[in-house]
């Protein structure tokens, strides 16, 4: 093989490409996650707000108020970085719930987001080998998943047309949970089943609904792919295809 041939072979590796469906779906997820991101960014803004008030330093009453705010802001920030089992964790939990309570997202997506945050906490605890925090982190995660599952089940029953996004989040959560289980070397309770059952119900409802509708050729193919994936137990693919049926 000449060098030219070697380079030709190398360029053939260009045939490695991502799945078209995944490319579309991932893009939609990333750009659709804007609102979640605003909430994440909001963790930094209180400090910026406190600092912006430093221009009132010439007024003593405002200085005192500023100092109090600054101290509270410090505690607030510390709470933001706390993990289940830490002293300030309860503060963080209250702040998060209050903030999400004010958001315009559907309740189910809020619970999914909270469950995702608890999963991130658990991942930090597992990767950092923080044994002290582990029982609390697992407990918090299981409780939030349980809440998210119940909420998803309700959404499927009451508002199925808005349940797909939450379903996708649920399956993603389940997948990440499995990765953490691998790190921990143990399974995390029965809540995964609860979440999986809610996702299954959602897919069944979607498939039944789509069966009654007139679909384009492309939608028909995606529908069949979703059905096959569901029968094979591949919930993520099934949900992705269903999402595409509704969004192409």
């Amino acid at each position, binding site marked *: *093989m*000449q*060098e*030219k041939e*070697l*380079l030709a*072979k*190398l*360029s*053939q*590796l*260009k*045939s*490695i*490409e*991502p*799945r078209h469906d*995944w*490319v579309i779906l*991932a*893009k939609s*997820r*990333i*750009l659709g*996650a*804007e609102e979640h*991101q*605003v909430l*994440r*960014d909001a963790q930094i803004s209180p400090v910026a707000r406190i600092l912006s008030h430093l221009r009132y330093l010439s007024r003593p009453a405002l200085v005192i108020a500023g100092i109090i705010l600054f101290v509270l802001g410090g505690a607030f920030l510390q709470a933001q970085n706390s993990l289940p089992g830490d002293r300030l964790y309860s503060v963080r939990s209250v702040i998060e719930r209050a903030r999400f309570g004010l958001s315009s997202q559907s309740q189910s997506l809020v619970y999914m987001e909270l469950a995702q945050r608890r999963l991130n906490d658990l991942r930090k605890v597992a*990767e950092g080998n923080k044994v002290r925090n582990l029982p609390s982190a697992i407990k918090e995660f299981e409780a939030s998943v349980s809440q998210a599952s119940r909420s998803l089940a309700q959404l499927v029953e009451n508002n199925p047309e808005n349940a797909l996004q939450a379903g996708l989040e649920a399956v993603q959560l389940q997948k990440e949970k499995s990765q953490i289980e691998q*790190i921990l070397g143990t399974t995390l309770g029965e809540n995964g089943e609860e979440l999986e059952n809610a996702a299954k119900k959602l897919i069944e409802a979607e498939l039944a609904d789509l069966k009654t509708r007139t679909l384009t050729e492309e939608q028909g193919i995606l529908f069949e792919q979703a059905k096959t994936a569901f029968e094979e137990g591949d919930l993520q693919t099934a949900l992705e295809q269903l999402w595409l049926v509704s969004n192409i």
Partner: protein
Amino acid sequence: MGNRAKDEFSLIYDQHITKIYRFIFLKVSSREIAEDLSSEVFTRTWTEFNKQEIKNIQAFLYGVARNLIADHYRVQGRIKIVSVEATFDIQDEQDDLQEQANLSSDMEMVQKALSDLKDDYQNLIIWRYLEELSVPEIAEITGKSEENVRVGVHRALQSLKGKLPMGKIEEKV
């Protein structure tokens, strides 16, 4: 975060998603992991995109991808990139049948040789010969001088040849 930013980022996504996916896939040899990491690359970039101006988006994307790949192997407790042969055993059959079918035995051999190179050399080969980036572009990504990149690419190619069990290859530089 207006619609304009979304449109702009949407274009960036369309232009780079395949390259970033391929870059990651060649290092992790699993479609599922490559999808997860690629998605994370663009999520993080989108976050930064909304906070600050990113001067060189391509360099930024590859930078995030490299960090995520390193994190992935750190968590997995692995330091070496999995070879193609090994991967074919552990990959989800359904996931990669098509990709496997598309690979000729020569390509498999080249991909395996590539995966056996040290990380820096792999990057240089992928960027220069697969993605056909220019030397200045690679210099931007790596933060090295153009001269260093040229030397690095030359050495990487030599090293790749050395990994291929096919006798001496004539060099045309």
